[in-house]
């Protein structure tokens, strides 16, 4: 007989693992990747491959040569960061910038805080915002979907629906007139618009979210809170003056809202632990996004909103605790 193992209970495990969750997220991003390749072709492939490879490589090099630890790139988390970074970049961005972004995302965003699970900010967004601030021109030139398929750096570019509407509204033109210049809501949902590689196809992102919910990789709280708060906030503004403010559907289907709400805001390490905390955090992201979009100087604000709420996560966790058993007052006996 073998030696008996004596250890405290529980003696069984769910079989869940870091890898299962990370590869699950990667799988959930496949529809969006496919949509990206469909709309942006060559550029989408080059940007995605470069970003994923660079992130994985940087993590490996830092762990092996700087920290002298065992490399854990096989856990899939660096690949997730790489894919999400790529999804947040235009598909005509030069290779050098992607590599810089990957170095910042992994090096500064993740490893400098202690690696997996320790990052206070979403690493991919740290990389993206670094690039946006440092290389604003390259980061805001958007290839035109389908037309840009065969080209990479020299792809045909055009404005995103968000910038068309923002500029139009601030020039005093009514929203009803501007809707003629942007794709239909159906086309927006399907992803036929200018934008970052992975953010355009709402339908693909929604599929990915459903997969993650079924696999219990994430819960509904953060995505619903982000989407719900944006819908309510922009809905109220739109109702108050339908010509001065775009409607909720426009805000939800354009820019990075769905990618942000489903995949960026739900980053484990940088989001709160309690359900109530998640709802507050998600609502904060939604409100800040709308404030930036409508009153800020950028047409898009999801990345900043997520990073700002990431900073509040420790505070939220400190003050907003999970609902306790017995919190509900006991029913009075008859």
């Amino acid at each position, binding site marked *: 007989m*073998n030696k008996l193992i004596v250890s405290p*209970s529980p003696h*069984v495990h769910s079989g869940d693992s870091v890898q299962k*969750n990370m590869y699950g997220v990667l799988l959930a991003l496949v529809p969006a990747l496919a949509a990206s390749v469909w709309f942006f072709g060559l550029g989408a492939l080059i940007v995605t491959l470069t970003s994923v490879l660079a992130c994985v490589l940087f993590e490996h090099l830092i762990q092996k040569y700087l920290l002298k630890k065992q490399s854990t790139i096989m856990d899939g988390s660096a690949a997730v960061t790489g894919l999400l970074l790529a999804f947040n970049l235009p598909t005509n961005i030069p290779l050098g910038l992607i590599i810089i972004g990957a170095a910042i995302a992994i090096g500064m965003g993740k490893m400098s805080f202690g690696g997996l699970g320790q990052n206070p900010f979403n690493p991919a967004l740290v990389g993206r915002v670094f690039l946006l601030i440092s290389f604003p021109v390259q980061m805001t030139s958007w290839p035109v979907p389908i037309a840009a398929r065969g080209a990479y750096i020299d792809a045909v570019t055009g404005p995103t629906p968000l910038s068309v509407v923002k500029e139009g509204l601030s020039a005093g033109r009514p929203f009803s007139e501007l809707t003629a210049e942007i794709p239909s809501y159906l086309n927006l949902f399907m992803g036929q618009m200018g934008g970052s590689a992975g953010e355009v196809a709402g339908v693909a992102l929604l599929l990915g979210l459903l997969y993650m919910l079924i696999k219990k990789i994430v819960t509904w709280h953060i995505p619903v809170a982000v989407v719900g708060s944006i819908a309510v906030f922009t809905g109220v503004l739109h109702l108050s003056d339908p010509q001065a403010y775009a409607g909720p559907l426009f805000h939800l289907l354009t820019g990075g809202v769905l990618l942000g709400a489903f995949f960026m805001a739900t980053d484990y390490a940088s989001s709160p632990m309690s359900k109530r905390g998640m709802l507050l955090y998600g609502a904060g992201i939604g409100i800040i996004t709308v404030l930036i979009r409508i009153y800020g100087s950028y047409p898009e604000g999801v990345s900043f909103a997520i990073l700002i709420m990431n900073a509040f996560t420790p505070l939220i966790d400190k003050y907003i605790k999970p609902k*306790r058993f*017995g919190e509900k007052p*006991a029913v009075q006996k008859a």
Partner: protein
Amino acid sequence: MLKTFSLGGVHPAENKRSANSPIEVLPVPPVVSIPLAQHIGAPAQALVKKGDEVKVGQVIAQSAGFVSANIHSPVSGKVAKVDQVVDASGYRKAAIIINTEGDEWVEDIDRSAILVKEITASPEAIVKKIGEAGIVGLGGATFPAHVKLSPPPGKTCDVLIINGVECEPYLTSDHRLMLEKGEELLVGIRLLMTALNVKEAIIGIENNKPDAIAHMEKLASEYEGIRVQPLKVQYPQGGEKQLIDACMGRQVPSGKLPIEVGAVVHNVGTAYAVYEAVQKNKPLIERIVTVTGLSLARPANFLTRIGTPISALIEAAGGLPDDTGKIIGGGPMMGKALTSTEIPVTKGTSGVLLMPQPLASRKPVDPCIRCAKCVSVCPMGLSPYLLMPLAERAIWDRAEEENVMDCIECGSCSFTCPSSRPLLDYIRLGKAKVGQIMRSRTAKA
């Protein structure tokens, strides 16, 4: 929608391999070893010494306080010695060892199978009898049953909840008991209702046992005030607080007992033992033990005399599989890993589970990724991810503020953790330390 408890919970693979194995009577073993501490509370005091002749059902150790329990001889024969033996805790504890000779019972025990339905005893007499018979919570908690039937002054009970949940994977002893001893069980429930002076009893059964639900519903229809509550399969529904919440929607406040919300919970096994004690004058000398495991040849449910070494049960179930890596007394979620096959069955042994080698070891620990799954599954609404580092770093005051004492040690957090972190190990440490600190504080005050 089937009822269940409101917060958290997990659903481990059920693996109830022995669910269709009828209860078999295990032969009386040649030697039994009966630990004096097989219940919560003070260990019983031995009344016999080496060389004494004993009969089945004779008191051999006496309750040593209010929270304690009598122990009766499960066999007839001669006391070999009163010595220290390793029990399920892994430590050496005092035990009475008896060499079996024949099977001679104390005369006034009714060993017939005749069902005695009529209840003649008064509430006080029932409680007294239960105390004398050494009955403890047979679900595994082993809390002396008579104590739960004596509500503290000012508190009243209005509902008796009978725990037929058996939410632990693998275990089937309660399931088989409900199927095979349903009539007796209901009389036991009536006795408990009489003792507590309550008009309502709810039998909670998870719906992975549809046969038991149907059978008990049919039998219960003849009794006023007893009903079956089918429940959604969700671990740890057999926890007292979770079961009360699931059946009645009442939540026992932190640090309080079920009586606070007017409930008392007893396991089906306990109710059956109550029937035997009061109606048949038979003390607690045997229990049903599930012997199971993925590699075991013949998973079974044995009616086993207390003190039988588990090796006898394993032999009767087809022998110890070669790939055994761990032997668990109880279920896989809350059971104790045993140190040898010679550990005796005690009143709290609901099962013996043999885990094959690859499943017996824990997986390597990864860093916490803050996935919040431990928070989602905690049935008490705690933050295991936070309690573990607080205990690791000995920050006891913060652990207390984070309600570490509310933990019921169900293990859902460790079970779920994708990083296989030993959350419950550290939370247990936290509970022990914080408990000590709290006790010394009240002692000072």
